[in-house]
């Protein structure tokens, strides 16, 4: 077994190595062939190959020294639009030496930028379009402002099919000499939900115990990696243990750094999966919407979500009384 993160080690280097997103890969290959690319938006859920696609594209376009022609920025890490703008300017201004006259700038998590920041980015993109092509990576292209969208070629990445994930994981399993049982592999499919990065991380963590991997091992690893479980918190609230639920919430926000907006989104999904009367789902959705709105306005995450948890406690109490 090798001792680095497998998710990185087995990241495909070239477009030929990508197992999934066939149509997208074909289009990217045609860019390579034409020795030219437009500005692009890669949108889709996590772990579906957006960053890998961008890196492979650059690799195939420039060859082994591709790093010199490439810059990666992450909108959630770079503080403020001015930093982004200055960095982009310095990088984009100078012409690339070599056969291809432009560089590539990958801007990850671009949907985390404010509208103002995106407006500024749009002007930069226009100004330096001769010398620099942008690949914007995001989960939701809807959060990218219209003027940028209209200047970019859109690519929509989707979750990996079972077959694609299987092929990829088998490759890793063989290379790393992992003893994997069928049930273990199925469990990984289930918990990763088509997110390949999560699948590989779970695989490596499960393999680190050094025993043949069965379903039990996988679930236990994933459970240990996700102690802050929204479902668990809702369960406590619905059981009437508001104080316990609030403690979990506190843990999620303060200890594990989860964003209130992520937590509320998950609660919203879970409510509809719960075995509760239909009219209650809608009543709760209405409450969740109100709380979500307050969060957007900048209210305190724990206080607002606590009010929601209290509402869940009350709801389950009323349901039991048949109201």
């Amino acid at each position, binding site marked *: 077994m*090798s001792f680095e*993160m497998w998710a990185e080690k087995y990241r495909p280097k070239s477009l030929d190595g990508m197992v999934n997103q066939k149509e997208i890969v074909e289009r990217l290959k045609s860019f390579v062939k034409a020795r030219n690319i437009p500005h692009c938006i890669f949108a889709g859920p996590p772990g579906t190959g957006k960053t890998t696609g961008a890196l492979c594209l650059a690799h195939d376009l420039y060859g082994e020294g591709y790093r010199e022609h490439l810059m990666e920025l992450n909108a959630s*890490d770079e503080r403020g639009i001015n930093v982004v703008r200055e960095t982009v300017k310095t990088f984009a201004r100078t012409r690339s030496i070599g056969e291809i006259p432009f560089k590539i700038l990958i801007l990850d998590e671009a949907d985390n930028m404010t509208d103002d920041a995106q407006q500024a980015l749009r002007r930069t993109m226009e100004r330096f379009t001769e010398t620099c092509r942008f690949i914007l990576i995001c989960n939701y292209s809807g959060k990218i402002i219209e003027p940028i969208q209209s200047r970019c070629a859109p690519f929509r990445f989707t979750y990996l099919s079972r077959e694609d994930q299987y092929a990829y994981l088998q490759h890793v399993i063989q290379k790393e000499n992992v003893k994997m049982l069928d049930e273990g592999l199925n469990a990984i499919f289930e918990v990763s939900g088509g997110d390949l990065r999560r699948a590989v991380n779970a695989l490596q963590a499960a393999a680190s115990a050094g025993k043949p991997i069965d379903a039990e091992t996988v679930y236990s690893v994933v459970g240990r990696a996700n102690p802050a479980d929204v479902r668990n918190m809702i369960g406590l609230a619905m059981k009437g243990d508001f104080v316990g639920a609030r403690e979990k919430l506190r843990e999620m926000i303060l200890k594990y750094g989860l964003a209130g907006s992520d937590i509320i989104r998950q609660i919203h999904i879970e409510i509809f999966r719960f075995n509760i009367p239909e009219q209650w789902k809608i009543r709760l959705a209405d409450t969740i919407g109100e709380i979500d709105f307050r969060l957007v306005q900048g209210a305190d995450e724990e206080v*607002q979500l*606590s*009010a929601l948890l209290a509402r869940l406690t*009350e709801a389950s109490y009323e349901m039991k009384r048949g109201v």
Partner: protein
Amino acid sequence: MYAAWTVKHKPRTLAEVVGNEEVIRTLTSWIDSWNKGIPKKRAAFLYGPPGIGKTVAVEALAHDLKMELVEKNASDYRTEEAVQRFAGLASQYATLFGGKRIILLDELDGITGTEDRGGVRAVIETIKTARCPLILIANNAYDPRFSTLRKYCLLIEFKKPTILQVMKHLKKVCASEEIMADERALRLIAERSGRDVRSAINDLQALAQGRRRLAYEDVAWLAERDRKEVIFQVLRSIFYARDCEEAKRAVDAADVDPDMLFQWVYENAPYQLTDPRDLTRAMEALARADVYRGRIRATQNWKLLRYMLDLMTAGVAISRQRTKPSGWVPFRFPERVQWLARTKQEREMQKMIGMKIRRRMHVSSVRAAKEILPYIRVIFEDNAEMAAGIAKWLDLDEDMISYIAGSESQVKAIVKNLGG
């Protein structure tokens, strides 16, 4: 399991008692003098502020001298008849089996009656005929009720221990509870207690129980506690108010910081309002108060403060409709404030590790900390060899390794693999 530390770590012998060495020597030699016949003063009157070890000193003394200690407190000598009930004991020098005894009348401040009547007079009568040492304890020996009583007693004043002495005792408690405590944290606790050892230990327990470390940040918020009594009063008014007016008035009168009060009400609401329907209304009122707080912050329009206050006081007060009274529910410190301090370092550490992962794995540091670090943690716990490889690959320093791996033995195993 939840034994009070003040009891669990109470000094058993004189050597363990904090401070007042001189005073205790006086007391001991007076007790010794009983061996040479009945001394001039048949009673010793120990006095001084609460929580500094008066009772504990007497108990330890009895233990060291192997004497029987008969402890009585205020309820045992409230009236003349009550005192007479144990006066008989005091009139005998030795116990049935020849052992010696001390009679301790604790909490004398609680005695009723003037000096001519009732309990105090009966105590004086008991002292006059006592054939074994009688020890009285009160906070204030100069209470007018005790003016005659004092004449029959050897007065011994207990003084507050120094900050260093209180800290020394706190350290001992920490050591036996296996808590690594920061010096500054203990100093703050000692200072805040007003050198009241008992209250310092109570605070220590509230802050440190179940933890392995106590840092300064964990206790810094204690500074707020100077105003504990004021806050408790306001909380009582809010949670037990009969109408809006009553709840609002309490806050106007008290002059407490609205943000701090909010934290207190928010923390305590679920304990005070146990009916889920009441609680939902209260939490919603608090959430609405929080919305106003946000508006104030955004617009700097402080006139809106009155609405925030309405909701967090009266709004919570009138939420109590169905909760059945269940006696006295103690108020709790806002844990969230402690949490914020306690988890701050942890969040910073996660961020730094996130940056390391980011350099290698093409993700933002935030996402790295949230989505990749948890799996790395599992690997670090299960496989020291692979962990060492990953640590090298990510260029993690020893602090980071120790944060991720958790247990000390595993950290050692990983570091050993790194060396190889």
